[in-house]
């Protein structure tokens, strides 16, 4: 072709010699008030990341008050004994800081990011929030109303609606995991400042909390700084809460959440499986990547790059909650959206991919590329302080050793094709998957029923 005439081609280059890189090892310590510390110096990272973990899991919320942990998390940035809510937000932003807080099954997490030049001041504000939150009646009432206003927006979002339905389907009705993390309209309505304060007093104390600090810590007297700020937070000693077991019903079935007129069907297909404590985890990570980690994985190779049914479908494992004894669990799921008329054909292809995988297994080439990617991207993935802090905090939250992530890379590299195949086939058995489809029931129910992937029921979107 004439288009090629002008360019000189060269063979594909070979890689140079890899430079050593290891996931950073944190330094551990404890403040006098019992607060556990993990510190990690990352040269050049001028924005410092601080993660605070509180042992206030969602299952600790009183029955009927689901959402109180979320409201407490939000209320931490709504004033202290020194600052009103408006002043507190202003002071934080004056540091160029951001402070996010959210409540999830393992506990409440606060994430602070701030330029190192203003770390001292921002840490002081964070310590005030933990030590002496105002929990003002008016502010809590506002947060409750705000949360109630958010719920219809979440219900209208297909991906959020699907996630909510899958939790409701998988977990027993009396399990906290079956209900929305941030509460329902009914439960949130019952919450007031007394409820938030009671939850705080019961579950928040330095002795059961951890602080992770990551960034360029050159020239900082961090010991003094931490003693002056987070060290001033006091509380009674406490024991970590026992972790309740996770049970789930993964009987193969299909739930259609009806959204008349939807131009796409949101799909979320999931069950519950092994978390990081299980020896199968590295193989499960590897196999799940081969199934649906990227657009060259098996699912997208067919659903996107061959058929054009979707912008992308992903398979993933997300830890729900872990326990020191290894009895925790992860959500294993496939998610994406496909155009409405192709919903049946897309699910048919998706199941074909799963069946072929179970029948024929992964190839060595697939396994090799996956290992090279998963291990090779580590230095990119952990370039920022925030990424390192978040992973270290995950390890603490999941009761894993500090060198877990570093060891995982060695384990991934040592995992073979057969193990990865077995892990992903066990993780995604075609007859033990709960399929949630948010879409136009009138158009999709019949074609989906014809696939025989489980009993189909239709529920209203609300």
């Amino acid at each position, binding site marked *: 072709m004439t288009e090629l005439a002008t*360019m000189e081609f060269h063979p594909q280059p070979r890689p140079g010699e890899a430079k050593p*890189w290891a996931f950073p090892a944190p330094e551990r310590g404890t403040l006098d008030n019992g607060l556990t510390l993990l510190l990690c110096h990352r040269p050049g990272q001028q924005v410092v990341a601080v993660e605070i973990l509180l042992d206030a899991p969602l299952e600790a919320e009183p029955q009927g008050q689901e959402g109180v942990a979320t409201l407490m998390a939000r209320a931490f940035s709504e004033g202290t004994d020194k600052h009103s809510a408006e002043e507190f937000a202003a002071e934080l932003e004056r540091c160029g800081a951001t402070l996010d807080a959210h409540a999830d099954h393992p506990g409440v997490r606060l994430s602070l990011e701030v330029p190192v030049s203003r770390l001292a001041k921002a840490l002081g504000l964070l310590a005030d929030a933990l030590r002496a939150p105002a929990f003002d009646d008016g502010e809590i009432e506002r947060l409750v109303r705000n949360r109630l206003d958010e719920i219809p927006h979440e219900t209208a979002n297909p991906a959020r609606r699907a996630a909510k339905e899958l939790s409701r389907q998988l977990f027993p009705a009396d399990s906290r995991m079956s209900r929305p993390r941030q509460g329902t309209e009914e439960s949130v309505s019952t919450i007031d400042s007394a409820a938030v304060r009671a939850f705080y007093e019961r579950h928040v104390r330095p002795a059961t909390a951890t602080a992770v600090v990551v960034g360029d810590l050159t020239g900082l007297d961090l010991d003094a700084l931490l003693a002056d700020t987070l060290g001033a937070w006091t509380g009674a000693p406490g024991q970590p809460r026992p972790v309740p077991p996770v049970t789930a019903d993964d009987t193969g079935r299909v739930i259609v959440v009806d959204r*008349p007129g939807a131009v796409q069907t949101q799909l979320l297909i999931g069950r519950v499986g092994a978390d990081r404590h299980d020896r199968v985890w590295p193989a499960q990570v590897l196999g799940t990547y081969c199934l649906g980690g990227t657009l060259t994985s098996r699912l997208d190779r067919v659903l996107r790059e061959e058929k054009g049914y979707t912008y992308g479908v992903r398979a993933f494992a997300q830890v729900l909650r872990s326990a020191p004894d290894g009895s925790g669990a992860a959500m294993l799921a496939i998610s994406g959206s496909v155009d409405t008329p192709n919903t049946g054909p897309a699910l048919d292809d998706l199941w074909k991919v799963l069946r072929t995988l179970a029948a024929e297994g992964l190839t060595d080439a697939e396994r090799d590329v996956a290992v090279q990617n998963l291990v090779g*991207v580590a230095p*990119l993935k952990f370039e920022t302080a925030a990424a390192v802090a978040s992973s270290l905090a995950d390890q603490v939250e999941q009761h894993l050793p500090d060198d877990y992530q570093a060891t995982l890379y060695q384990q991934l590299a040592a995992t073979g094709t057969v193990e990865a195949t077995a892990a992903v086939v066990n993780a995604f058995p075609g007859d033990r998957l709960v399929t949630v489809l948010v879409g136009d029931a009138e158009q999709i129910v019949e074609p989906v029923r014809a696939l025989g992937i489980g009993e189909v029921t239709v529920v209203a979107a609300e």
Partner: protein
Amino acid sequence: MPMGHTATAEAGSGGLTATEHRLANGLRVVLSEDHLTPVAAVCLWYDVGSRHEVEGRTGLAHLFEHLMFQGSGQVKGNGHFELVQGAGGSLNGTTSFERTNYFETMPAHQLELALWLEADRMGSLLAALDEESMENQRDVVKNERRQRYDNVPYGTAFERLTALAYPEGHPYHHTPIGSMADLDAATLEDARAFFRTYYAPNNAVLSIVGDIDPEQTLAWVEKYFGSIASHDGKPAPRDGALPDVIGGELREVVEEEVPARALMAAYRLPEDGTRAADAADLALTVLGGGESSRLYNRLVRRDRTAVAAGFGLLRLAGAPSLGWLDVKTSGDVEVPVIETAVDEELARFAEEGPTAEEMERAQAQLEREWLDRLGTVAGRADELCRYAVLFGDPQLALTAVRRVLEVTPEEVRDVARARLRPDNRAVLVYEPVAPEAAEATDEAAEATDENEESAK
């Protein structure tokens, strides 16, 4: 090859440096060394975006960006993705109004592979481009459009407001995702012509940032890109210049199945790259950035009439920028209540300007955002390309934060007074309707503040 600028850090650049080079075929190259982590970012900006598209072919620049991942002369099928990911790298491409970018972040020892891949598709894409990948990616992009715009509440707000803010026929009147009809109409010959017109070394800037050896890197760039022929004949985009102010409020009411009423607006603001654009950024931050802004305090905290309220800036170099207001109402609150409060706050701000403390907060926020952007090799590579392509000087990326810190409160007040006025905005109002009524109107709708489309 001789080095361009010497690599000496300028004041206010945080110690970062960059050097500039140009190949004989016109490809501009920017290098920035940083040996803290063994990674290297490659970023390639082509000076073509949706503003270059013609009537009846909206969405072509973005659809074409997808085709750049479907193989080239020496790369089969999805090889661009497979090879980069198999080397432990990450990659993507995005399309905006003003440019299309492609980027890889690699372990440092795999840098050469990324350069080989980018050169291969710059020089030989058409050897692999065929009807099959065209049809497939057309379907993928249409599903991208459904997923991000048509199937989510308020999803088409960005498209609608852009169409209001820039008049019919203006190059920014339509957004990069394009219309379904135009995506259907695009042909393989359109894609070929697009490549021949815009994908030339003299219409691109390549930046490489991270743990690199500059001399070796330049030698590789010369080896792989040096033989790609330059070509001219790229038509200039239609002129995006518009008067400073609209001169009257533009308004559209959308009745749709959305969860709450919403007030959105786009204010016409100074072009990116000017000191006035930085002043506008600070004004919008004081008024609507974060949770201590004037609008947040007024609407969310005090009046309690809104769930969320904020301002954002869509920086544009070839047309006026847009100040983006987004307020979702609380409970049964009606839009005029919100609108009156917004107008009061904007008028008061235009009168008083920011307080010293508000300036300090806004500048601290924007400073942190810059530190975040320049804190990764990929972010730095993208900013170097941006300043090289849009403003002709990559060094400006390294001093951008200093310029934001130099803006005075008077400049912030002046830009607010001149631009943040009711007669200088396009307004989009959402009124929720019940599902049955919504079905009567043909178009679905949704909202996102994204102005980029990406391949993955």
